[in-house]
C-alpha cells in the first residue's frame, strides 16, 4: 500500500517559486489500476517522480508498505527504488549496447545476483512479455513495441509493488501501443499497482481509477 500525506513540491526558477504539487493526499491499495491525466505542467510528472523516489517532496510524507520513505538516506532510497518500484518510460531508456536480456537483467545485476539465477529470472520475464525469441537482440534490432515490452520486463523483474508508466504508448503506433497496455494490465491483474500517466483519454479511460490534475492539485479522483 502507498500513502501520500500532504505532499508539496516547490521548484525555484530564478526568483520565482513554482508550486508544482500542492497538498497531494493519495492512497493506493494493492492491485489498483490508476491513470493520471491532465494538461502539461499540471504536475503529473512531478508526482510520478516523487512516487518513484527520483525527486524529493519539499514537505509531506510518503509511506510505502507502511514505511516512511521521505526520511531515508540516498542509499536506502536506492534500495527501495530497486526492490519496490518499476519504471516504464515514454522513450524506453534501453541501453543500446546491451542485448534485450542484458537490459532486463540490469536491476538484478545491480542487486548483485549471480548470473545463473539472473538468467532463469530473465527467461521467465521474457516469456511473460512474449519476447523469448528476441533475447539476444539489441534495442536497435527491435520494433518500438518490442522495446517497450523489454522495458516493462526490466521494470517488473524485481517484482515491485508499484509500476510507474510515464506515457508508455507515447512513442508507439496504435496496435503496438495496444499490446503494451495489455501487457501492463496483465501485470496489474497479478496484483501490482499500475500507475499510468498519459495524455491519451482512451488509455486513461481504461483504468479503474482516474485522477485528473490541474495546477499541481488533484481536481478529480474518480473511483
Amino acid at each position, binding site marked *: 500500500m502507498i500513502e501520500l500525506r500532504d505532499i508539496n513540491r516547490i521548484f525555484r526558477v530564478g526568483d520565482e517559486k513554482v508550486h508544482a504539487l500542492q497538498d497531494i493526499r493519495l492512497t493506493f491499495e494493492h492491485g489498483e489500476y490508476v491513470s493520471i491525466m491532465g494538461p502539461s505542467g499540471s504536475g503529473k510528472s512531478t508526482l510520478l*517522480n516523487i512516487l*518513484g523516489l*527520483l*525527486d524529493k517532496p519539499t514537505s509531506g510524507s510518503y509511506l510505502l508498505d507502511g514505511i516512511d520513505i521521505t526520511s531515508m538516506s*540516498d*542509499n536506502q532510497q*536506492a*534500495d*527501495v*527504488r*530497486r*526492490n519496490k*518500484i518499476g*519504471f516504464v*518510460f515514454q522513450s524506453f*531508456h534501453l*541501453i543500446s*549496447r*546491451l542485448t534485450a536480456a542484458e537490459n532486463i537483467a*540490469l*536491476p538484478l*545485476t*545491480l*542487486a*548483485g545476483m*549471480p548470473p545463473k539465477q539472473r538468467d532463469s529470472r530473465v527467461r521467465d520475464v521474457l516469456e511473460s512479455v512474449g519476447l523469448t525469441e528476441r533475447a539476444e537482440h539489441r534495442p536497435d534490432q527491435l520494433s518500438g513495441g518490442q522495446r517497450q515490452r523489454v522495458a516493462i520486463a*526490466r521494470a517488473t523483474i*524485481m517484482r515491485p509493488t508499484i509500476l510507474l508508466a510515464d506515457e508508455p504508448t507515447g512513442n508507439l503506433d496504435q496496435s503496438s501501443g495496444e499490446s503494451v497496455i495489455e501487457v501492463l494490465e496483465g501485470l496489474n491483474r497479478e496484483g501490482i499497482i499500475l500507475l499510468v500517466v498519459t495524455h491519451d483519454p482512451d488509455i486513461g479511460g481504461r483504468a479503474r481509477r482516474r485522477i485528473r490534475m490541474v495546477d499541481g492539485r488533484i481536481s478529480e479522483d474518480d473511483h
Partner: protein
Amino acid sequence: MRLVDTLLYGAGNIKGSPVRTFLLLLAMSIGVASVVMLSSLGEAARLYVVNQFSALGTHLLIVLPGRSETAGGAPPLLGTTPRDLTLEDADALLRSPYINDYAPIVVGSAPVSHDSLEREVTVIGTSASYARIRELETAQGRFLPAGDYDRAPPVCVIGETLRKELFGHRRAVGERLKINDRRFRVIGVLADSGQSFGMDMGDLVFVPTPHAMALFDTESLFRIIAQAAGRSAIEPGKRAITEIIRERHEGEDDVTVITQDAILATFDRILKALTYTVAGIAAISLAVAGILIMNVMLVSVSQRTPEIGLLKALGASQDQILVLFLSEAALLSLIGAASGILIAWFGVFGLDRLFPAFPLGTPVWAYLSAVIVALLTGIGFGIMPAKRASRLDPVLALTGR
C-alpha cells in the same frame, strides 16, 4: 553489484567507443612504455658500471699520492702531491698481513715504433703482479717477469690492437720495438679484453716499472693497486696502508686510499638516483595520460547522462555509479599499462639487439611502479568525473539534461 559485473559493464562501455578508447590507450601506453624503458636504460647504465668495476679485479685498494681534501681545494683524485709515492713505499705495503699483493703503476704516453711504423700509445710501467691482480691474460707469450726492479730486463707486453698495427700478420713475440728510442723486446701479447673505463686495453704497452720511470724521467708512482687478503681484509688493509705510508712519510698523511667497494657504492648511488630521475620525468607523460582520462571520462559522463539517470531509476546508489565509472577508468589504465609494457618490452628487446654489450634488462620494480602509477593516475583523475556522474539528479539525467 558483483565485481565481475561491474568490470564487464565498464568493458562494454570501453568497447562502445573504440576510437576514443584507442587514443586514450595510446597516451597511457606511451607513458607506461617510457617509464619502463627509461628505467631499463638507467638500470642498464648502473649494471654496466658495476660490471666494469668488477672487471678491475677483486678486493682492490687503490693508493693515490696526495691527500683528499674535504674542505675546498681540488677534488680527491687531483689532490696535490707533497711527497712522491715511491717504489719503496709500494714494497713496504707487503709488511701488512692484510695485503696480499701489489702492483706499482707509472703511466705516460710515448711513441712506440717498429721498423718504419710508429704509434703514440699509453705506456704503463708495472710489475708481474699487475696481470694477476687485474686478471689479465696473455694471448701469446707471457706477462712481465717477476723479480728485482734493479735487474728488470728491457721487455714489454703489448695490447692486441697495437700488435696488429705494428706487426700485422707477423709474429710479435720475440720481436724488438722502440719506445722513445729505448729498445724493448716483446715477450707477450694481451688477450683481447675490450675496453676498461674508456681505456682501450688493446692499445697499450706494459714495461717493467724502472724502465717506465726512466722513460718518463720520474721517481714517483702514478698510483699503487693493492689486493687485500680477502673481503674482510679490505678495511683493515686500508688502515694499514695509511699507517705504513705515514710512518715512511715522516708522520704525514699524504696518500689517499680508495677501496673498490667505496667507488662502486658511490657510482651505484649516483646511477640509481639518475634512473629514478629519468623514470620520474617519464612519469610526467603518465600524468598527461591521466588528464586525458579525466577529459574523456567527463565527455563520457555527459554523453551518458540518460543512462546514468536510468541506472539511478533502476536502483543504483550513488556509490554504485561512482564505482562503475572508477572501474572503467581503472580498466582503461590497466589495459593502457599492459600495452605500454608490451611496447617497452619490444623496445628493450630491440635496443638489446642493437647494443648487445650493454646489459639491458628491465628491473621488476619498473614494471610494478609503472602499472601502479598508471592505475593511480587513472583512478585519481577518474574520481572527479565519477563523482559528477554519481551526483547527477536522476530526473534531469533521464531527460538528458
